[in-house]
């Protein structure tokens, strides 16, 4: 395989387009962000892995009732807000549904926590969680959402909400919209040439003089390396 073929390979990557070449055809640069959940994870899967993913994807954990509660809860945790994208907008409940089956220790605290919401609402307001007014709902959530202030006897419900918060946040930020909100800039065409100058200055750093001539020079990264007998780079 020569270098040219090698570079061509890069274009098979969904995000690799245009990473190295400047003289490529823009038509080749089709970025494919479509969710691939339906088929399970791609890339050198064993037969067992494929069967496992397919089995999980074919099973349903949450009941319709639980799913309704989940939809409300994830949007409380990650609402549309400034960027206009809520957790349900980026299918966080589908991700949580999958994780329940992929990591079974989540199941009981999650199911029990969703049940607790109804039990508590019923005891306190005489109706189930989904039937509460918005302000009543938030009274319930505020009881369990702040671990340092929550009453000790609600530790189980706090734990449920911690798990739910973790999964909702991670489900949110591991989407294309989540990347955009986070401002993640990686996995795009680049040659690492250090921290941008203005950032370096702002944080009060300079690159050590000793290594300045040694660091990779972007313009030389096409040249095949050659050394003298002492191991000094000469070409």
């Amino acid at each position, binding site marked *: 395989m020569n270098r040219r073929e090698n570079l061509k390979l890069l274009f098979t990557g969904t995000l690799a387009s245009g990473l190295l070449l400047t003289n490529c055809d823009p038509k080749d640069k089709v970025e494919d962000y479509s969710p691939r959940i339906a088929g399970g994870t791609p890339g050198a899967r064993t037969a067992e892995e494929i069967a496992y993913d397919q089995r999980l994807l074919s099973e349903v954990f949450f009941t319709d009732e639980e799913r309704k509660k989940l939809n409300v809860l994830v949007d409380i945790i990650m609402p549309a807000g400034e960027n206009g994208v809520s957790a349900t907008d980026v299918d966080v409940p589908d991700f949580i549904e999958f994780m329940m089956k992929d990591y079974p220790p989540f199941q009981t605290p999650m199911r029990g926590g969703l049940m607790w919401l109804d039990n508590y609402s019923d005891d306190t307001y005489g109706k189930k969680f989904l039937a509460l007014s918005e302000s009543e709902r938030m009274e319930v959530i505020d009881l369990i959402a702040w*671990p340092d202030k929550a009453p000790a006897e609600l530790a189980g419900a706090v734990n449920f909400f911690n798990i739910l918060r973790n999964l909702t946040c991670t489900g949110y930020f591991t989407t294309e919209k989540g990347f955009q909100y986070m401002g993640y800039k990686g996995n795009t065409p680049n040659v690492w040439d250090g921290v941008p100058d203005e950032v370096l200055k702002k944080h009060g750093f300079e690159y050590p003089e000793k290594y300045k001539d040694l*660091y990779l020079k972007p313009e030389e990264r096409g040249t095949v390396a050659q050394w003298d007998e002492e191991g000094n780079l000469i070409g």
Partner: protein
Amino acid sequence: MSFEIKSSGEAYDVIIVGSGAGGGMASKILSEAGLSVAVLEAGQDFDPAKEEDRTQLRPPWESPRRGSGTRVRPFGDFDQAIGGWDIEGEPYTKAPGTQFDWFRSRMVGGRTNHWGRISLRFGPNDFKRKSIDGLGDDWPIGYDDLKPYYDKVDKLIGVFGSKEGIYNEPDGFFLPPLKPRLHELYAMKGAKKANVPMIPSRLSMLTRPINNERGVCFFCNQCNRACQAYADFSSGSVLLKPAMEKGKVDLYTFAMVRAVTTDDSGKATGVSYINKVDMQEYKLRARAVVLGASACETARIMMNSKSKSHPNGVGNSSGMVGRYVHDSTGADRMGILPDLVDRERYNEDGVGGMHVYTPWWLDNKKLDFARGYHIEYWGGMAMPSYGTGFAMDTMRKYLKDEFGNPSPNGGYGEGLKKDIRRLYGTTLGMSGRGESIPQYSNYCEIDNKVVDKYGIPVLKFHYKWTDQEIKQAKHMQDTFEEILTEAGAILMGTKPGADTLYGLATPGRIIHEVGTTRMGKDPNTSVLNSNCQAHDCDNLFVVDAGPFVSQADKNPTWTIMALAWRTCDYIVEEFKKKNI
């Protein structure tokens, strides 16, 4: 139950068991010398340049679990080490009161597909530890014996770094190193105040090309997924596949080797293996057998190769096979850098590993433990993946509002969303990886009570850390705290204390297990001679980390390859002299 044992008529010059760092190197050197070679790999074929095998450059939403680990891929759903600590149908056991976790990778290239590419030479002292501190044993060879091979490995495979002139951290033929990232500059600031050196990393990614066959690094930070441009070192892409293109090399995948077969004179005649696809046993014949199955798997094969001429297993007349297994020590700590809250966004991917590290810098004569450790650093604006946004029930308090009040832990809503964004890329982590003292009493043996699903008796581990490793971990924790604090970080969690052995990782967890078939001059206390040839079987060789007498505070891969190359040169000579 009886099963058919099939025999292939054709004999090879050499059978190589395993396609990782050692097996891959052997396939290249032996086939280039004109020998016919069979490589047996217990897992599946793998080539990261093939679209169907590619996980590189895939965003987390292409995984239904957003990249979280699985039983088969504990380091994440996109990680390219197929296997893990707990492989279905391939158990191992541990003696009561002892611990060992065994990581295996069942695929072409083995664990080289996902490793950290930390490519350090052992130094002159690392071969002569007993002479220095009286513990363990000296190697039968020294740095000068391996230096020419390290040089060749550098040029063949490519490693970036800087010439430093540190006696026990020998320089090599380096590609240009990379400028540190921002969190690494903070670490350097802290290390400088703590009088701890930091130098450019030595990693085997191509910052510049070394030939026209492999691509150059394009900085995606995902070397653990194996590189489709072959810009990092994986044994399959860099050694085995070129060997197959140029030489007489047959690759057998899904071939689980059970035993080395021997004749009445005690010579190796080939191997017996189970084909995992049809679950039949087969035999292959060869004039020499080279084991590179990984230190523990190689020991297992040798101990399971019992015959009249080798009643304790081939190579095991001394009873030393499996003895002295040892892993690197490991401990970690993490902090948050308040200076990085709300940091500027830019592409910080770099290579898939740290750009700077700390080699061992102290004199053990002035310390209460015998061997050193190096320090790895991590952090930065990595691709959000499973785990991003976790732990806000404990981490949110590290953020302060405009009036200087800490945010409350936990919560929900737009404020939480913003706080996760503010905290992104603010962590600075440190990991110590050190040298342990090999012990006769730490070993693996065959557990006669348990077989795997191929009917092969499994390994039973006996392993306990000694005070040497525990004191070293304590020193690591003190160092981590000092550097993190001097860097301006807020330490997270509590400092691991004596109750947790100072956070010392369980043996096996650092995945640097070595020493099970150690080299030595005395056939009564070692398995292999200084050419990695079995003392009691002239045509049996080991090319993985089994021959290591001691592990050094460095990652083993570069030494596995230098040693394998040297061993293969010897094998070729022996073929030429018709000794094999």
